[in-house]
């Protein structure tokens, strides 16, 4: 088991980095005094605590090891792409294209891609989404729009 790439070491180091960045960005806010704490005081306290816990976790990982960091790349990429495409398509083209694109992309998470299935599911979800969010809750979303 690797001392550097196990879950504890990587997790701890990520936390450590997060703490350092958080502290650095937060450094521009005034600390104030103990009696009247400024906007930067609480973040500074948190930043240091995060750095300390991150260091402890990373140290434990290096000394004692931990589990292997096992990423399922295919589902991760497919789902990420689906969400990103929804965010890009929805404001420009409306609900129907956004659902279609994200269903198609998230279906690639599985090894078997069946176009007919994607189409049927999309139609069903577009109808459901329109019924629930637009008809019932009255949200101002367009089914299809031209940018």
């Amino acid at each position, binding site marked *: 088991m690797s001392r550097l790439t196990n879950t504890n070491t990587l997790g701890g180091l990520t936390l450590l980095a997060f703490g350092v960045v958080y502290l650095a960005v937060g450094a521009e806010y005034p600390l104030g005094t103990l009696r009247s704490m400024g906007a930067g005081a*609480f973040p500074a306290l948190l930043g240091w605590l995060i750095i300390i*816990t991150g260091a402890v976790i990373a140290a434990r990982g290096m000394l004692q090891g931990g589990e292997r960091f096992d990423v399922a790349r295919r589902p*991760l990429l497919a789902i990420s792409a*689906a*969400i990103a495409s*929804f965010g890009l398509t929805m404001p420009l083209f409306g609900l129907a294209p956004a659902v279609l694109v994200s*269903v198609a992309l998230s279906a690639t998470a599985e090894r078997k891609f069946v176009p007919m299935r994607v189409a049927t599911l999309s139609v069903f979800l577009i109808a459901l*989404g329109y019924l629930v969010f637009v008809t019932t809750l009255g949200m101002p*979303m367009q089914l299809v729009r031209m940018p």
Partner: protein
Amino acid sequence: MELLGNLALGFETALAPTNLAYCFLGVLLGTLIGVLPGIGSLAAVSMLLPVSFYLTPEAAIVMLAGVYYGAEYGGSTAAILLNLPGTPSSAVTAIDGNPMAKNGRAGVALFITTIASFAGGTFGIFLLIALAPTLAEMTLVFGPAEYFSMMVLGLIGAATITGGSPIKGLAMVLVGLALGTVGTDVNSGTARFTFGALQLYDGISLVALAMGLFGVAEIISSIQSGGRHQVRQNVRLRDLAPSGSDMKQALLPMGRGAIMGSAVGILPGAGQTMAAFFAYSLEKTVSRTRDLFGKGHIPGIAAPEAANNAAVQSAFIPTLTLGVPGSATMAIMLGALLIHGVSPGPSLLDLNPHIFWGLVASFWIGNLLLLVLNIPLIGLWVRLLQIPYHLLHPAILCLICIGVYSVNFSAFDIGLVLLFGVAGYFMRIAGFDPAPLIVGFVLGPIMEENLRRAMLIGRGDPAIFVERPISFWLLVISAALLVWTIFAFVRAAAKHTGNAPSRTDQEKENDRSST
């Protein structure tokens, strides 16, 4: 007779047709989502959070509460039929529930869980009615120092009790607190950690954070673990009826489970999972038929189910009266209340009695609806379980995206979901449970506010936290809890060294699922 008057007010609010309708809708949707394998009550509540913004505060909370216990109930259905707990707390139900299903007694198991849930829930509600006003009165003497220390205890509880590594839990709480500082500082008006993005001036969207960490991350992990399980069993109405001896066997465990569950539910940080687990262990200890546990023994499902639902109800006691949520789901409830401009705490009972008592009444009505709804609909839930995952995950993902988008109509929020979804997935595989993060996130701003006020009152001397007796004892308990869990964890880890992986599969399972 004040209590009767309050309850009358409550039932009046809860029985208003719109609230009743949303209670029904919440319970129905909650069960529907909870039944789906791999989706817990936390994801269910976050998925329906955006919808609640369109409702009145009462209707919103009534619906979300319905979703919560509906999902808990639905989770046990999946646990019994598939041995695939929809919610972590129902993992305990699966121990005896699934063997019962394999012996062809799935119907009886489902019926007993329904009855046990109802009994446990009812008991928890009685406790809520009895304790909440007294507790709220007691907390009137709380100043900022006491609130701060109370929240410290709540956060340490959330970080340590969930199981797994306490230091990782603590780290997640701290990250949650840090994310909570994003946005405009209420005291000085400084925009913090916004990186110039106007969308962040009001803070990170709770909906986007919760959906990303729980919804999206859960989908990615479920696809990875296969998620292909088929139920062969068909459950018909007439299979449901338990025999007289079945009921007799279930009766006492139900009572013990309800008491155990409500007691555990009140504790900050301890959730239904703990409640169910404790109740099961207690049953095993007191039982004269100990050998039958794990092989489909009725007390083995009746006790944890009663405990689980009693804990759901009693967890509302600290959330509503102190404003300190015991679990991540409660934190989201608290967030929902805050978004609706209702601040939980001792003043809730005075300022918004219709909300508090309406909630209490609707809890009971919701539990009743659960009973009425589920016995005839069990067949439908069974069929839902047969939906293959390749159809389910794109559907859930789309609903998450539409839901998040509908809050602000901004693609920015979708970006946040993506960010937190990926982050949440990495946390999961690295053994960091994201549930304490949500508790920290919701409590962060309130905590900072109270810290700053207390320091002002104490003229800049932090001694104020130990000089005031209530605050002192809260901090002592927090420290003891922290030291004790770290000690216990280190000792357990030391036992495992030698056989290389430092954590057992069971612990890993607990980590992953302790939402």
